[in-house]
Protein backbone atom coordinates (compact mmCIF):
# COMPACT_ATOMS: atom_id res chain seq x y z
CA UNK A 1 0.00 0.00 0.00
CA UNK A 2 1.32 3.43 -0.92
CA UNK A 3 1.16 6.60 1.15
CA UNK A 4 1.44 10.30 0.35
CA UNK A 5 4.78 11.82 1.39
CA UNK A 6 4.77 13.60 4.75
CA UNK A 7 5.38 17.36 4.82
CA UNK A 8 8.28 18.62 6.92
CA UNK A 9 7.70 21.27 9.64
CA UNK A 10 9.11 24.11 7.55
CA UNK A 11 6.74 23.23 4.71
CA UNK A 12 3.63 23.69 6.86
CA UNK A 13 2.05 27.11 7.30
CA UNK A 14 1.66 28.46 10.83
CA UNK A 15 -2.10 28.77 10.35
CA UNK A 16 -2.34 25.07 9.49
CA UNK A 17 -0.21 24.14 12.49
CA UNK A 18 -2.55 26.13 14.75
CA UNK A 19 -5.64 24.47 13.32
CA UNK A 20 -4.07 21.06 13.92
CA UNK A 21 -3.27 22.03 17.50
CA UNK A 22 -6.83 23.31 17.94
CA UNK A 23 -8.18 19.84 17.26
CA UNK A 24 -6.77 18.54 20.55
CA UNK A 25 -7.90 21.47 22.68
CA UNK A 26 -11.32 21.44 21.05
CA UNK A 27 -11.73 17.80 22.16
CA UNK A 28 -11.06 18.72 25.79
CA UNK A 29 -13.80 21.32 25.84
CA UNK A 30 -16.34 19.06 24.23
CA UNK A 31 -15.33 16.05 26.32
CA UNK A 32 -16.15 17.98 29.49
CA UNK A 33 -19.47 19.14 28.03
CA UNK A 34 -20.58 15.72 26.92
CA UNK A 35 -19.53 13.74 29.96
CA UNK A 36 -22.78 11.88 30.75
CA UNK A 37 -23.59 11.20 27.12
CA UNK A 38 -20.86 11.12 24.52
CA UNK A 39 -23.22 12.37 21.79
CA UNK A 40 -22.55 16.10 22.19
CA UNK A 41 -18.78 15.92 22.15
CA UNK A 42 -18.64 13.32 19.43
CA UNK A 43 -20.93 15.37 17.21
CA UNK A 44 -18.83 18.48 17.90
CA UNK A 45 -15.65 16.53 17.17
CA UNK A 46 -17.03 15.23 13.89
CA UNK A 47 -18.13 18.74 12.87
CA UNK A 48 -14.65 20.05 13.68
CA UNK A 49 -13.18 17.30 11.53
CA UNK A 50 -15.39 18.08 8.54
CA UNK A 51 -14.90 21.84 8.81
CA UNK A 52 -11.12 21.47 8.91
CA UNK A 53 -10.51 18.59 6.58
CA UNK A 54 -10.13 20.88 3.59
CA UNK A 55 -7.16 22.55 5.26
CA UNK A 56 -4.89 19.76 4.21
CA UNK A 57 -3.75 16.34 5.30
CA UNK A 58 -1.70 17.58 8.24
CA UNK A 59 -4.76 19.10 9.95
CA UNK A 60 -6.86 16.15 8.88
CA UNK A 61 -4.44 13.69 10.47
CA UNK A 62 -4.34 15.46 13.83
CA UNK A 63 -8.10 16.02 13.90
CA UNK A 64 -8.79 12.41 13.08
CA UNK A 65 -6.26 11.11 15.60
CA UNK A 66 -7.86 13.24 18.28
CA UNK A 67 -11.38 12.21 17.23
CA UNK A 68 -10.57 8.49 17.16
CA UNK A 69 -8.85 8.54 20.52
CA UNK A 70 -11.78 10.40 22.03
CA UNK A 71 -14.38 7.81 21.05
CA UNK A 72 -13.31 5.03 23.47
CA UNK A 73 -12.52 7.52 26.24
CA UNK A 74 -16.00 9.03 25.95
CA UNK A 75 -17.63 5.61 25.93
CA UNK A 76 -15.66 4.52 29.00
CA UNK A 77 -16.62 7.71 30.85
CA UNK A 78 -20.28 7.29 29.96
CA UNK A 79 -20.14 3.69 31.12
CA UNK A 80 -18.76 4.85 34.45
CA UNK A 81 -21.44 7.50 34.90
CA UNK A 82 -24.18 4.99 33.99
CA UNK A 83 -22.76 2.32 36.33
CA UNK A 84 -22.57 4.82 39.20
CA UNK A 85 -26.14 6.02 38.67
CA UNK A 86 -27.48 2.46 38.46
CA UNK A 87 -25.62 1.55 41.67
CA UNK A 88 -27.14 4.50 43.50
CA UNK A 89 -30.66 4.07 42.16
CA UNK A 90 -30.80 0.34 42.74
CA UNK A 91 -28.82 0.61 45.98
CA UNK A 92 -26.25 -1.89 44.75
CA UNK A 93 -22.80 -2.54 46.15
CA UNK A 94 -19.79 -0.74 44.76
CA UNK A 95 -17.88 -3.92 44.05
CA UNK A 96 -14.19 -4.41 43.34
CA UNK A 97 -15.15 -4.70 39.68
CA UNK A 98 -16.62 -1.21 39.83
CA UNK A 99 -13.56 0.28 41.51
CA UNK A 100 -11.29 -1.54 39.07
CA UNK A 101 -13.31 -0.06 36.20
CA UNK A 102 -13.13 3.39 37.78
CA UNK A 103 -9.35 3.20 38.05
CA UNK A 104 -9.10 1.91 34.49
CA UNK A 105 -11.26 4.81 33.21
CA UNK A 106 -9.24 7.32 35.25
CA UNK A 107 -6.03 5.89 33.76
CA UNK A 108 -7.50 6.12 30.26
CA UNK A 109 -8.53 9.75 30.88
CA UNK A 110 -5.09 10.61 32.19
CA UNK A 111 -3.31 8.92 29.29
CA UNK A 112 -5.67 10.63 26.81
CA UNK A 113 -5.02 13.98 28.49
CA UNK A 114 -1.23 13.64 28.48
CA UNK A 115 -1.06 12.34 24.92
CA UNK A 116 -3.39 15.08 23.70
CA UNK A 117 -1.22 17.79 25.25
CA UNK A 118 1.88 16.28 23.65
CA UNK A 119 -0.04 15.91 20.36
CA UNK A 120 -1.11 19.56 20.49
CA UNK A 121 2.39 20.82 21.22
CA UNK A 122 3.88 18.71 18.44
CA UNK A 123 1.16 19.79 16.01
CA UNK A 124 1.96 23.43 16.78
CA UNK A 125 5.56 22.67 15.84
CA UNK A 126 4.47 21.00 12.63
CA UNK A 127 5.56 17.58 13.82
CA UNK A 128 3.70 14.29 13.50
CA UNK A 129 3.02 12.49 16.74
CA UNK A 130 1.47 9.07 16.62
CA UNK A 131 -0.69 7.74 19.45
CA UNK A 132 -0.60 4.00 19.88
CA UNK A 133 -3.18 2.48 17.50
CA UNK A 134 -5.10 5.76 16.85
CA UNK A 135 -2.06 7.47 15.29
CA UNK A 136 -1.46 4.70 12.79
CA UNK A 137 -5.17 4.44 12.06
CA UNK A 138 -5.44 8.18 11.37
CA UNK A 139 -2.25 8.13 9.24
CA UNK A 140 -3.56 5.16 7.28
CA UNK A 141 -6.87 6.91 6.74
CA UNK A 142 -5.47 10.27 5.71
CA UNK A 143 -2.22 9.52 3.89
CA UNK A 144 -3.16 6.34 2.04
CA UNK A 145 -3.11 6.83 -1.71
CA UNK A 146 -6.53 5.79 -2.90
CA UNK A 147 -6.93 4.44 -6.41
CA UNK A 148 -8.41 7.02 -8.78
CA UNK A 149 -12.00 6.37 -9.61
CA UNK A 150 -12.47 5.19 -13.18
CA UNK A 151 -14.25 7.61 -15.52
CA UNK A 152 -17.03 5.10 -16.08
CA UNK A 153 -18.15 5.41 -12.45
CA UNK A 154 -18.99 9.10 -12.96
CA UNK A 155 -22.75 9.42 -12.76
CA UNK A 156 -23.20 13.04 -13.77
CA UNK A 157 -22.24 13.93 -17.30
CA UNK A 158 -22.91 16.94 -19.58
CA UNK A 159 -26.04 16.61 -21.76
CA UNK A 160 -25.64 14.52 -24.88
CA UNK A 161 -22.69 12.48 -23.57
Amino acid at each position, binding site marked *: *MEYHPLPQPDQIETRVKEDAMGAYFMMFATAALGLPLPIINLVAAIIYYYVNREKGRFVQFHTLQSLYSQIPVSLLNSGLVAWTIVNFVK*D*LNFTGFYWGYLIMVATADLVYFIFSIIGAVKARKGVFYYF*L*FFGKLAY*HQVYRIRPERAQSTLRNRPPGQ
Partner: protein
Amino acid sequence: MQRTILRDLLILLGVFGLIWLVFSLFSYPDDPQLISKQKEEQLGDSYVELILLNPMFEKLDNSVVDSALLVIGGRLEDALPDSEYHYDFVVFESEMINAFTVPGGNILISSALIAFCDTPEELAAVMAHEMGHVEKQHVMSRLIKELGIEILTSRDQFVLGEIAGMLSSTSFDRKQEEEADLFAAQLLERAAIEPRTLATVFRKLEKETDWDLLEDFEIVSTHPNLSSRIRESLHYKPAADFQAERIDLDWEGVKAALL
Protein backbone atom coordinates in the same frame (compact mmCIF):
# COMPACT_ATOMS: atom_id res chain seq x y z
CA MET B 1 0.24 -1.30 8.15
CA GLN B 2 -3.14 -2.88 8.89
CA ARG B 3 -1.40 -5.62 10.87
CA THR B 4 0.46 -3.15 13.08
CA ILE B 5 -2.78 -1.22 13.62
CA LEU B 6 -4.45 -4.44 14.74
CA ARG B 7 -1.46 -5.30 16.96
CA ASP B 8 -1.63 -1.85 18.59
CA LEU B 9 -5.36 -2.29 19.22
CA LEU B 10 -4.74 -5.63 20.91
CA ILE B 11 -1.99 -4.05 23.07
CA LEU B 12 -4.36 -1.26 24.14
CA LEU B 13 -7.20 -3.66 24.94
CA GLY B 14 -4.80 -5.95 26.81
CA VAL B 15 -3.24 -3.17 28.91
CA PHE B 16 -6.55 -1.58 29.91
CA GLY B 17 -8.25 -4.94 30.43
CA LEU B 18 -5.38 -5.91 32.71
CA ILE B 19 -5.66 -2.65 34.67
CA TRP B 20 -9.36 -3.35 35.21
CA LEU B 21 -8.75 -6.91 36.25
CA VAL B 22 -5.84 -6.18 38.61
CA PHE B 23 -7.58 -3.30 40.37
CA SER B 24 -10.79 -5.32 40.72
CA LEU B 25 -8.95 -7.67 43.05
CA PHE B 26 -7.99 -5.02 45.63
CA SER B 27 -9.91 -4.10 48.78
CA TYR B 28 -11.54 -0.70 48.68
CA PRO B 29 -12.33 2.02 51.26
CA ASP B 30 -15.81 0.99 52.39
CA ASP B 31 -14.46 -2.47 52.98
CA PRO B 32 -14.73 -3.07 56.73
CA GLN B 33 -11.40 -4.84 56.53
CA LEU B 34 -9.90 -1.48 57.47
CA ILE B 35 -10.19 -2.90 60.96
CA SER B 36 -8.27 -6.12 61.48
CA LYS B 37 -10.12 -9.25 62.57
CA GLN B 38 -8.17 -9.20 65.80
CA LYS B 39 -9.24 -5.63 66.53
CA GLU B 40 -12.82 -6.47 65.58
CA GLU B 41 -12.82 -9.35 68.04
CA GLN B 42 -11.42 -7.16 70.82
CA LEU B 43 -14.06 -4.51 70.14
CA GLY B 44 -16.78 -7.16 69.98
CA ASP B 45 -15.79 -8.61 73.35
CA SER B 46 -15.95 -5.20 75.04
CA TYR B 47 -19.35 -4.52 73.47
CA VAL B 48 -20.70 -7.87 74.66
CA GLU B 49 -19.44 -7.20 78.19
CA LEU B 50 -21.15 -3.81 78.22
CA ILE B 51 -24.38 -5.13 76.74
CA LEU B 52 -24.60 -7.87 79.36
CA LEU B 53 -24.15 -5.29 82.13
CA ASN B 54 -27.48 -3.81 81.09
CA PRO B 55 -30.32 -5.35 83.19
CA MET B 56 -32.36 -5.75 79.97
CA PHE B 57 -29.76 -8.18 78.65
CA GLU B 58 -28.92 -10.25 81.67
CA LYS B 59 -26.90 -13.29 80.70
CA LEU B 60 -28.68 -16.60 81.13
CA ASP B 61 -26.45 -19.15 82.79
CA ASN B 62 -28.05 -22.44 82.03
CA SER B 63 -25.96 -25.44 81.10
CA VAL B 64 -28.78 -27.20 79.22
CA VAL B 65 -29.41 -24.19 76.99
CA ASP B 66 -25.69 -23.53 76.57
CA SER B 67 -24.95 -27.06 75.48
CA ALA B 68 -27.91 -26.99 73.06
CA LEU B 69 -26.49 -23.86 71.50
CA LEU B 70 -23.08 -25.48 71.30
CA VAL B 71 -24.61 -28.38 69.37
CA ILE B 72 -26.51 -26.13 66.94
CA GLY B 73 -23.69 -23.58 66.61
CA GLY B 74 -21.12 -26.36 66.16
CA ARG B 75 -23.16 -27.90 63.38
CA LEU B 76 -23.33 -24.56 61.57
CA GLU B 77 -19.67 -23.74 62.17
CA ASP B 78 -18.60 -27.14 60.86
CA ALA B 79 -20.35 -26.25 57.62
CA LEU B 80 -18.31 -23.06 57.44
CA PRO B 81 -14.73 -24.32 57.56
CA ASP B 82 -13.18 -21.28 55.86
CA SER B 83 -14.65 -18.74 58.23
CA GLU B 84 -12.21 -16.32 59.82
CA TYR B 85 -14.51 -15.92 62.82
CA HIS B 86 -14.84 -17.95 65.93
CA TYR B 87 -18.49 -17.76 66.86
CA ASP B 88 -19.75 -17.18 70.35
CA PHE B 89 -23.48 -17.57 70.98
CA VAL B 90 -24.71 -15.93 74.19
CA VAL B 91 -28.24 -16.26 75.58
CA PHE B 92 -29.76 -13.43 77.60
CA GLU B 93 -32.96 -13.38 79.58
CA SER B 94 -35.66 -11.35 77.94
CA GLU B 95 -39.33 -11.53 77.11
CA MET B 96 -38.58 -9.88 73.79
CA ILE B 97 -38.00 -12.13 70.80
CA ASN B 98 -34.62 -10.94 69.64
CA ALA B 99 -31.25 -11.96 68.28
CA PHE B 100 -28.50 -9.66 67.14
CA THR B 101 -24.96 -9.62 65.97
CA VAL B 102 -22.08 -7.93 67.72
CA PRO B 103 -18.74 -7.50 65.90
CA GLY B 104 -16.20 -10.29 66.07
CA GLY B 105 -18.61 -13.21 65.64
CA ASN B 106 -20.66 -12.67 68.80
CA ILE B 107 -24.33 -13.48 68.43
CA LEU B 108 -26.73 -12.69 71.24
CA ILE B 109 -29.99 -14.59 71.45
CA SER B 110 -32.91 -13.87 73.77
CA SER B 111 -34.48 -16.62 75.83
CA ALA B 112 -37.85 -15.66 74.32
CA LEU B 113 -36.54 -16.47 70.84
CA ILE B 114 -35.54 -19.97 71.98
CA ALA B 115 -38.99 -20.44 73.48
CA PHE B 116 -40.54 -19.15 70.26
CA CYS B 117 -38.79 -21.77 68.13
CA ASP B 118 -40.62 -25.09 67.89
CA THR B 119 -37.58 -26.99 66.66
CA PRO B 120 -33.82 -26.59 66.98
CA GLU B 121 -33.76 -26.22 63.18
CA GLU B 122 -35.78 -23.01 63.45
CA LEU B 123 -33.26 -21.57 65.89
CA ALA B 124 -30.47 -22.77 63.59
CA ALA B 125 -32.10 -20.82 60.75
CA VAL B 126 -32.10 -17.59 62.77
CA MET B 127 -28.51 -18.23 63.90
CA ALA B 128 -27.44 -18.87 60.30
CA HIS B 129 -29.08 -15.59 59.28
CA GLU B 130 -27.16 -13.72 61.97
CA MET B 131 -23.95 -15.49 60.93
CA GLY B 132 -24.68 -14.17 57.44
CA HIS B 133 -24.55 -10.62 58.83
CA VAL B 134 -21.19 -11.47 60.44
CA GLU B 135 -19.63 -13.12 57.41
CA LYS B 136 -20.83 -10.40 55.06
CA GLN B 137 -19.51 -7.83 57.55
CA HIS B 138 -22.77 -5.93 57.66
CA VAL B 139 -22.38 -4.86 61.27
CA MET B 140 -18.87 -3.54 60.84
CA SER B 141 -19.62 -1.76 57.58
CA ARG B 142 -22.71 -0.19 59.12
CA LEU B 143 -20.83 0.98 62.20
CA ILE B 144 -17.94 2.33 60.11
CA LYS B 145 -20.37 4.12 57.83
CA GLU B 146 -22.46 5.60 60.64
CA LEU B 147 -19.79 6.38 63.20
CA GLY B 148 -16.42 6.29 61.47
CA ILE B 149 -13.38 4.33 62.53
CA GLU B 150 -12.20 6.90 65.05
CA ILE B 151 -15.33 6.66 67.23
CA LEU B 152 -15.53 2.93 66.70
CA THR B 153 -12.07 2.32 68.07
CA SER B 154 -12.48 4.80 70.92
CA ARG B 155 -11.65 3.55 74.43
CA ASP B 156 -14.02 5.99 76.07
CA GLN B 157 -16.46 4.03 78.22
CA PHE B 158 -19.40 6.30 77.43
CA VAL B 159 -18.86 5.99 73.69
CA LEU B 160 -18.46 2.24 73.99
CA GLY B 161 -21.70 2.05 75.99
CA GLU B 162 -23.57 4.00 73.32
CA ILE B 163 -22.27 1.74 70.56
CA ALA B 164 -23.24 -1.32 72.60
CA GLY B 165 -26.73 0.16 72.94
CA MET B 166 -26.95 0.72 69.19
CA LEU B 167 -26.01 -2.86 68.46
CA SER B 168 -28.98 -4.39 70.26
CA SER B 169 -31.38 -2.75 67.85
CA THR B 170 -29.32 -2.47 64.70
CA SER B 171 -31.35 -2.64 61.55
CA PHE B 172 -29.96 -3.50 58.17
CA ASP B 173 -30.99 -2.42 54.75
CA ARG B 174 -32.94 -4.51 52.30
CA LYS B 175 -29.94 -5.73 50.38
CA GLN B 176 -28.13 -6.81 53.52
CA GLU B 177 -31.18 -8.71 54.79
CA GLU B 178 -31.54 -10.47 51.47
CA GLU B 179 -27.83 -11.35 51.50
CA ALA B 180 -28.09 -12.72 55.03
CA ASP B 181 -31.20 -14.76 54.09
CA LEU B 182 -29.45 -16.29 51.11
CA PHE B 183 -26.31 -16.95 53.12
CA ALA B 184 -28.44 -18.64 55.79
CA ALA B 185 -30.14 -20.90 53.25
CA GLN B 186 -26.80 -21.96 51.76
CA LEU B 187 -25.23 -22.53 55.17
CA LEU B 188 -28.21 -24.55 56.39
CA GLU B 189 -28.03 -26.71 53.30
CA ARG B 190 -24.34 -27.38 53.84
CA ALA B 191 -25.09 -28.23 57.47
CA ALA B 192 -27.73 -30.76 56.29
CA ILE B 193 -30.57 -28.69 57.74
CA GLU B 194 -33.61 -27.92 55.61
CA PRO B 195 -32.54 -24.58 54.01
CA ARG B 196 -36.08 -23.28 53.70
CA THR B 197 -36.66 -23.40 57.46
CA LEU B 198 -36.21 -19.63 57.46
CA ALA B 199 -39.60 -19.41 55.72
CA THR B 200 -41.17 -21.24 58.69
CA VAL B 201 -39.64 -18.74 61.11
CA PHE B 202 -40.82 -15.79 59.00
CA ARG B 203 -44.33 -17.25 58.77
CA LYS B 204 -44.51 -17.65 62.53
CA LEU B 205 -43.15 -14.17 63.11
CA GLU B 206 -45.73 -12.79 60.72
CA LYS B 207 -48.46 -14.52 62.71
CA GLU B 208 -47.14 -13.18 66.00
CA THR B 209 -49.80 -10.77 67.16
CA ASP B 210 -47.92 -9.14 69.97
CA TRP B 211 -45.68 -6.87 67.93
CA ASP B 212 -44.27 -5.23 71.05
CA LEU B 213 -42.33 -8.44 71.64
CA LEU B 214 -40.68 -8.12 68.25
CA GLU B 215 -39.87 -4.44 68.46
CA ASP B 216 -36.08 -4.77 68.41
CA PHE B 217 -35.77 -7.88 66.28
CA GLU B 218 -33.83 -6.85 63.18
CA ILE B 219 -35.29 -9.68 61.11
CA VAL B 220 -38.74 -8.16 61.30
CA SER B 221 -37.87 -4.50 61.73
CA THR B 222 -36.52 -3.98 58.26
CA HIS B 223 -37.64 -4.24 54.68
CA PRO B 224 -38.29 -6.30 52.63
CA ASN B 225 -41.48 -7.38 54.33
CA LEU B 226 -41.84 -10.88 55.66
CA SER B 227 -44.16 -12.22 52.97
CA SER B 228 -41.70 -11.40 50.21
CA ARG B 229 -38.92 -12.99 52.25
CA ILE B 230 -41.02 -16.10 52.78
CA ARG B 231 -41.45 -16.28 49.01
CA GLU B 232 -37.71 -15.80 48.41
CA SER B 233 -36.86 -18.40 51.00
CA LEU B 234 -39.25 -20.93 49.48
CA HIS B 235 -37.75 -20.27 46.07
CA TYR B 236 -34.42 -21.58 47.29
CA LYS B 237 -33.60 -24.84 45.55
CA PRO B 238 -31.43 -27.28 47.48
CA ALA B 239 -29.23 -29.73 45.57
CA ALA B 240 -31.05 -32.75 44.12
CA ASP B 241 -29.29 -35.14 46.51
CA PHE B 242 -29.89 -33.00 49.58
CA GLN B 243 -30.96 -34.95 52.66
CA ALA B 244 -31.84 -33.15 55.85
CA GLU B 245 -30.53 -34.60 59.11
CA ARG B 246 -32.36 -33.75 62.32
CA ILE B 247 -30.47 -31.92 65.03
CA ASP B 248 -30.34 -34.46 67.78
CA LEU B 249 -31.59 -32.49 70.77
CA ASP B 250 -34.35 -32.87 73.32
CA TRP B 251 -35.83 -29.54 72.30
CA GLU B 252 -38.73 -29.66 74.73
CA GLY B 253 -36.19 -30.31 77.48
CA VAL B 254 -34.17 -27.27 76.37
CA LYS B 255 -37.26 -25.09 76.37
CA ALA B 256 -38.32 -26.43 79.76
CA ALA B 257 -34.90 -25.46 81.13
CA LEU B 258 -35.70 -21.84 80.29
CA LEU B 259 -38.62 -21.74 82.70
